[in-house]
């Protein structure tokens, strides 16, 4: 889980404690037991420098030649200078990784890393940030029935590595003292589910490229990737069904019925002000009218493992359900949703819809027996907040052939994907 909140800054610039952000105890302890992910590796030029120092040192001792001792001293001093400059470079630099607002499988999303340099007059150069996204659940390998422990480890690891996305964000140019920068990563989640967005490490070759320094970062966020949007084919009869006395939309619109009162906002027409209520409450209140009556739908998604045996078909089901739900919600025609045997949830606010997508993101087939071919009917729909036990305009889903998925409205095929 996340070890830092979304607004937490991390890095040497965020340290608290002593005035200078440095304590000898911390330094010595870090030498004995480095932090996780903190490592220093020599680069090619570093290896050359070390080899040169060894060679020159050997020659110096072998010959007692002070010119070689001077050269050796200079090489060692350069190595120390490199460490000091590297320390200056990281000093007072802080970063944070706010989680992206929403991610959807198959759609590009942007992760932004924010940086700031708290030094007074020294800039910071040449940092890079290793950012990864990693599914929290292992990706499916082979048929769903197989137990994970039966799968070859190599195959599982390969699938996990394939599902993992990583990038290295470079700080190009100079981060001035007191300055801030944003590094963007545009990536495309491949599959729905919970993902771990992590800043694995912060690295640098600064200043001379002798050593590759990595600072481990505990910055991790759990983000939800909603199911991918799919293209589906609509079948006309369901689209134009007359309203059969089902639900009426109780949402704001331009209809004639008063829906609610709300606070006045800039730009509202003065004619909408409810003067009487305003006088009573002491605040300007405006009338909010209900939308015109329209046909609305409820969506019921069943994920019986006995019905959805193919993983690809199940993924298509989830994607189609999410796409249909989104389209209907945007059109104001989705009133409630239900998952398996859970009670239906009303869809009134965007937050409701996002919660539904969150559930779709992690939904898996359940071992719930439901005979295939039985027509999904309104009689099975659980009541919505106890208002009615028999529902109309219920969208259900069933396999359509070996790979496809069909959506039904009251038993009539409405859309296929």
């Amino acid at each position, binding site marked *: 889980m996340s070890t830092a909140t979304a607004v937490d800054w991390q890095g040497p610039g965020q340290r608290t404690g002593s005035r200078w952000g440095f304590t000898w105890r911390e330094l010595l302890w870090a030498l004995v037991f480095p932090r996780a992910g903190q490592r220093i590796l020599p680069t*090619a*030029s570093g290896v050359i420098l070390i080899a*040169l120092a060894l060679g020159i040192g050997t020659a110096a001792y072998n010959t007692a030649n002070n010119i070689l001792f001077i050269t*050796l001293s200079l090489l060692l001093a350069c190595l*120390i200078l490199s460490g000091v400059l590297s320390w200056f470079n990281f000093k007072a630099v802080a970063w944070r990784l706010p989680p992206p607002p929403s991610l959807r499988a198959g759609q590009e999303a942007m992760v932004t890393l924010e940086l700031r340099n708290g030094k007074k007059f020294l800039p910071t*150069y*040449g*940092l890079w940030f290793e950012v990864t996204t990693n599914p929290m659940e292992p990706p499916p390998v082979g048929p769903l029935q197989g137990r994970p422990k039966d799968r070859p480890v190599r195959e599982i690891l390969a699938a996990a590595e394939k599902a993992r996305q990583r990038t290295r964000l*470079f700080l190009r140019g100079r981060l001035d003292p007191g300055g801030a920068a944003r590094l963007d990563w545009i990536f495309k989640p491949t599959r729905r589910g919970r993902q771990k967005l992590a800043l694995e490490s912060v690295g640098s070759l600064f200043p*001379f490229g002798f050593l590759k320094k990595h600072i481990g970062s505990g910055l991790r966020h759990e983000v939800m990737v909603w199911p991918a949007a799919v293209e589906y084919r609509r079948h006309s009869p369901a689209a134009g069904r007359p309203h059969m006395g089902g639900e009426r939309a109780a949402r704001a619109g331009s209809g004639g019925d008063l829906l609610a009162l709300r606070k006045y906002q800039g730009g509202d027409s003065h004619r909408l002000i409810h003067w009487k209520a305003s006088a009573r409450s002491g605040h300007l209140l405006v009338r909010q009218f209900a939308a015109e009556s329209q046909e609305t739908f409820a969506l019921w998604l069943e994920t019986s493992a006995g019905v959805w045996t193919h993983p690809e078909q199940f993924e298509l089901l989830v994607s189609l359900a999410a796409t249909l739900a989104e389209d209907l919600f945007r059109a104001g025609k989705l009133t409630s949703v239900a998952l398996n045997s859970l009670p239906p949830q009303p869809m009134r606010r965007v937050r409701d819809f996002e919660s539904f997508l969150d559930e779709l993101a992690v939904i898996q087939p359940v071992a719930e027996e439901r005979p295939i071919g039985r027509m999904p009917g309104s009689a099975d729909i659980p009541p919505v907040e106890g208002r009615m036990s028999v529902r109309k305009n219920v969208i259900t889903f069933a396999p359509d052939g070996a790979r496809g998925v069909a959506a039904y409205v009251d038993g009539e095929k409405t859309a296929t994907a």
Partner: protein
Amino acid sequence: MSMEKKRPQLSLDELHQLKWLLGSVLALFSVWTVFYLDVDAWTLLILNTVAISAALIWPGWLARVPAAVHIGAFPVIVICFVTDLWTNGQILPAMIRLDLMLILYRGISYRQRRDDLQLIVLGLFLVVVAGVITVSLAFAVQILAFTACALAFLFVVTLVDATEAKYPPVHTPLFTWRISVATPSWIRQADWPRLFARLRTVVDWRIVTFASVLFAGVVVLSGLLFLAIPRFQLENSLFLDRFMSKKARTGFTDNIKFGDVTDIIADNGLAVSVDVSDPGQMPATLYLRMVVLDEYREDSFRLSPALRRASFGQEPNAIEVDGTERPHAGAPVYWTVYLESGVSSYLPLPGSFERLHFRELQSILNSRNLRAISLRNEPVTMTAYRLEGVNTSPLLSDPGFAENLRNPPRDRNGAPLRYTRRELVVPAQESDQAALRAAVAEITGGATLSAEDFAGRACRWLDTRHDYSLQSATPAGPGDTLTRWLTSKAPGHCELFAGAFVMLARTAGFPTRLVTGFKGGTWNAFSNNLTVRNSNAHAWCEMWNGEGAWLRVDPTPGSAPVTSANEPQGTAAFAARLDRSWSARLDSLRIFWYRRIVNFDQGNQLDTLRAVKSATQQAGQRMRVSLDRLVLAVKTWLVSGWDARRIALVMTGLLAITGLGWAGQLLLRGWRWRIRRNDNNRRADPARREAGRWLERLREKKGEGEPGTDAVWPDLERVRYGARPTWPELEKVFRRARQAWRGRGKSPRLPS
């Protein structure tokens, strides 16, 4: 709205151009070591300099080089190296020339990261080899410049790499001399004046100062590391000088023709530096003996093979040589001699000594009788050695020669060996011998003289007949050259005077030999050492005094023929020859380099540690004594009598101290506050500072009722002091301020 001025940054193209510039400068720095390396690589040096400079200025031309050149470059370089090695047979010069060729290639071809690293390593090889071989002070300058340039180069390379946007290698057509379409933009847009202008705008003086301080820190740190790195004497000799041979530049060999020493005198370069731990032991005129020449043949003196065989015993790989002097009581006096490379394989020695110590193992030939030491190989680097128990007396005892005179060694047939009489040999022709006998008769007047008296008279005789001149003119004619000069009135130089004296003394029956080396020198007032230049090269004689010793006789005019026993010694003797010139300053740097760096060894390291320990202890003792005195003074003051006046004085003093402390604290706080405010202003609000500047400029104009000034004044004050969200558009405000300053300001139009 953020109007803070941001320092511009170099673009990727400009970083690549800067990298190219630094790489080329680094290459030039490296190849210029050949200047003082004394390797036959002048052609390559000139080629490197010209080609790398041209490639630096016009990098676009390199894109026209066909790929075939790059493909064939390395094999050609290898072939050149093998041919060079095969032809000359010296591996180190061949490797240096190979290094130069590789640097040339890397300097005139577009480099990737690994090529940049190669360039640095190749350059470092040249610099270090030059330093090891020459042990020159120039190495210190060179390595510092190289390090600074290499660090800046690596810094820029790292910045370029950090952008991750690497240019692909430039691919040119295989055989066509035309520019490739894939040439990176930094090559096409290379404009050095523009780059320098950009650098001026990008560079912050604080960063430059910080970098300079850091580099100074690196130098200091490397100095401390140099002192602190533990030293062990593994007793191995230097490996590089074995791969390189060198001829003596000055001609101090064991075969000297007339004029050789004069040629040396024409060179004013540094030859020897002599450092004495007790300058009081330094004679006013120091003679540094190098070569002893006993045989005169065909107008030249030489060390006869027989004497060489008889005198020089081989002591392979000695680091210490025992001399003929016996240990003296008292503190030892050390003479450290720094012999520059190219002078001679013979070591300059001020006389007899007790012990000689080299810095490292040396393969030597030592003659205890002749007091001469020769290195087996001509040293290609500065050679330093330390002498202990030196005797600079003009008399050199030689019991072996005395014994030989008494009982000449004989061959198998019982005949005396000839080499014992070689110091008495004169030209073979009778006419020459007759002329010499006549001259001796004129000198002695028929009397039998002691060696010292004969030396004095002969020198005066020569002085009256000949003037000193570096341009000698020996009259033409038959017979021996030296005898012709001796009997003439022609001027001559030291070799002719010494040679003539040798002939005269031998004719008079005194075994005599010629000695070459250095005489005199200047006393460096900055480093307190004797500096001997090649122009101090000299030739003199050593005459057997018949009492078991060789007497130094210097017949050249201007010298005392026989050094007096009461000759002044020490710094006072050099008062007239103190050198305070700029050249002496440079030489003092060189001596510092030799004393403190080149000659630093385990013993010096221990001495340094002891000195630090001693200084710390002394400082501690001084502090303890001071504290004790202070405590005693306070106690004494406290127990002395107290009266009202004294109490009042004490109270006044305490009040004054308190007041001063309080005032100081206030001042300190105000100073800190002012610094913080200025710092904040400086850092955060360049716009406020700009507005302040304009307010200051326009202050006078405001009083004159200038309408533009009055109009812009409130806006400037708002920018200077007001909250940031209330600021007007800054560019317009400053433009109006500029117009008002130029007198073209207009009053603002009233809103309708």
